């Protein structure tokens, strides 16, 4: 299936299967980083692999050769513990080398446990302490408007992270200043460290959608692991004028690796040798499957 590419945006992979392949490679790199680092957060990294693939290879106006370009679109990974996913997409895009991924969380590595903007090209904001990213994204979006630069700002927030009150302070600010150049993405994987998000704070993805709508957001609820839906959701967000958008992305924690899927135990745990082998095999199978689908299309 081919999608129509947006006017003026060259060199973008718009084929759904190609983006699926990229997301699959991001997943391979995520588990490889965490396996080599013997530490990290696989569950919430794997859940956002498809979102990151679409952002970096279809949606955002960025150039890895000019990571500091003042007119670039920005991403704030508010759920900074998904750093392995961000590093993986940055490596895939060419900001950093794939070899560097193997140093994840090691003492001499630039790839800190949580992203450090001063250590890694392409990281637009240092994050890690939950709840702060949407405020920062608002600041970026305000600067874009003040300077008439037109760049857009994306902010990935965890559903568990919505427990933090600052998110809702920030939501008021996004709305007050009519930040239609801001698109938040809530990774609704339904799980946080100690269990089910709905049980812990009493909100599910429908509640989240309603809350953001009542705060003045344009809301779009999708399957956040479906490339086609993600592409379309960003398209819808572009059309919303005068208000910020939020994509409520229903995802599966640990997506792509069957023994991790929907299992909160994989929030912050490294893979052992056997688990790494199994996970990699499953992703290699998935790649073959995508290749077959691509052949079918041609």
């Amino acid at each position, binding site marked *: 299936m081919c999608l129509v590419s947006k006017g003026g945006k060259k060199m973008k992979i718009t084929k759904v299967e190609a983006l699926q392949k990229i997301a699959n490679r991001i997943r391979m790199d995520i588990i490889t980083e965490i396996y080599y680092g013997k530490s990290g957060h696989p569950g919430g990294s794997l859940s956002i692999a498809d979102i990151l693939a679409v952002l970096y290879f279809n949606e955002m106006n960025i150039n890895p050769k000019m990571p500091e370009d003042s007119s670039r679109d920005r991403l704030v990974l508010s759920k900074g513990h998904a750093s392995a996913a961000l590093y993986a997409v940055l490596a895939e895009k060419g900001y950093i080398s794939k070899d560097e991924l193997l140093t994840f969380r090691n003492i001499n590595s630039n790839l800190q446990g949580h992203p450090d903007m001063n250590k890694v090209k392409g990281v637009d904001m240092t994050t890690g302490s939950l709840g702060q990213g949407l*405020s920062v*994204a*608002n600041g*970026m979006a305000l600067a874009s408007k003040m300077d008439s630069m037109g760049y857009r700002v994306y902010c990935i927030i965890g559903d568990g992270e919505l427990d933090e009150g600052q998110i809702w302070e*920030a939501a008021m600010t996004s709305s007050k200043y009519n930040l239609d150049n801001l698109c938040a993405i809530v990774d609704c994987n339904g799980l946080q460290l100690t269990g089910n998000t709905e049980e812990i704070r009493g909100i599910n993805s429908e509640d989240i959608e309603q809350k953001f709508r009542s705060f003045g957001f344009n809301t779009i609820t999708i399957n956040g692991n479906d490339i086609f839906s993600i592409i379309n959701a960003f398209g819808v967000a572009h059309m919303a004028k005068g208000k910020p958008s939020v994509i409520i992305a229903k995802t599966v924690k640990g997506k792509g690796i069957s023994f991790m899927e929907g299992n909160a135990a994989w929030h912050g745990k490294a893979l052992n040798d056997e688990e790494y082998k199994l996970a990699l095999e499953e992703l290699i199978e998935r790649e073959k499957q995508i290749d077959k689908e691509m052949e079918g299309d041609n």
Partner: protein
Amino acid sequence: MNMIATRESFGKALEELGEENEKVVVLDADLYNSTKTEEFKNRFPERFFNLGIAEADMIGTAAGLATCGKIPYASTFAAFASGRVYDQIRASIAYPKLNVKICATHAGITVGEDGATHQMIEDINLMRGMPNMLVMSTSDDIQTKWAVKEIAKYNGPVYLRLSRYKTPVVYDEKTKFEIGKGIQIGDGTDASIIATGVTVVESIKAMEELKEKGINVRVIDIHTIKPIDKDLIIKCAKETDRLITVEDHNIIGGLGSAVCEVLAENYPKKVTRMGIEDTFGRSGRAEDLMRYYGIDKNAIIEEIEGL
């Protein structure tokens, strides 16, 4: 005598700075008539953001603006500009070294009638213990106006501690200030009174009265708490008989502690720390509170006379 609180000097200098530097933006948390950012707001409404009573969001928004080349001045009362948002400053400003100037008005017990919840006496401790943070605490109108403009030229996070309490102007327009360099007033050798912020004027008054009694002291104005002027502190330890620190802050972790750290490692000497003795404040007039907590002119004189 011209009496002015450093929050007012801040407001005036900020408006001038807005004229000189269009990268400067100001954020406030529903207190602009108290923090005195109102003049900037009225003059440059497109560069002013009132985030409401949402200090955490204000700090994060300032961080985001800084990543895009703006020079944000974020202002609220010291209690809310430090303790309430400690982690936001730590994670989103200090660690990434973002160019945000946190301008904390209403510091110390001299806030007065509002009482303990609003009398921030731990902020120097919190902010100087934070890596990458430049910490300043200015004492008069001229020095504050200089600091407000000077920190715009410094690329990095700054915490500027300001007061509500009106104090006389100490310096003249020609005074040369430098970040990290303390100011020596007088050259008495009986004692050095090392002060910051509102206690500088109290120390100068004490110096003048003591002189009439034949006791010759000097006053050291430490406007930059971090990095602190080690050389000047060591010099005073060598040149004067006694060392006294006095601050409108808890005696734990503030100016007194910073001075002791310098001397313990370089020139061990007894230091008397005057300040709030590890207790929360209370309501009252600022002058009465300074007397009550023992950080006014009389307390300094009594300490030096050995009463």
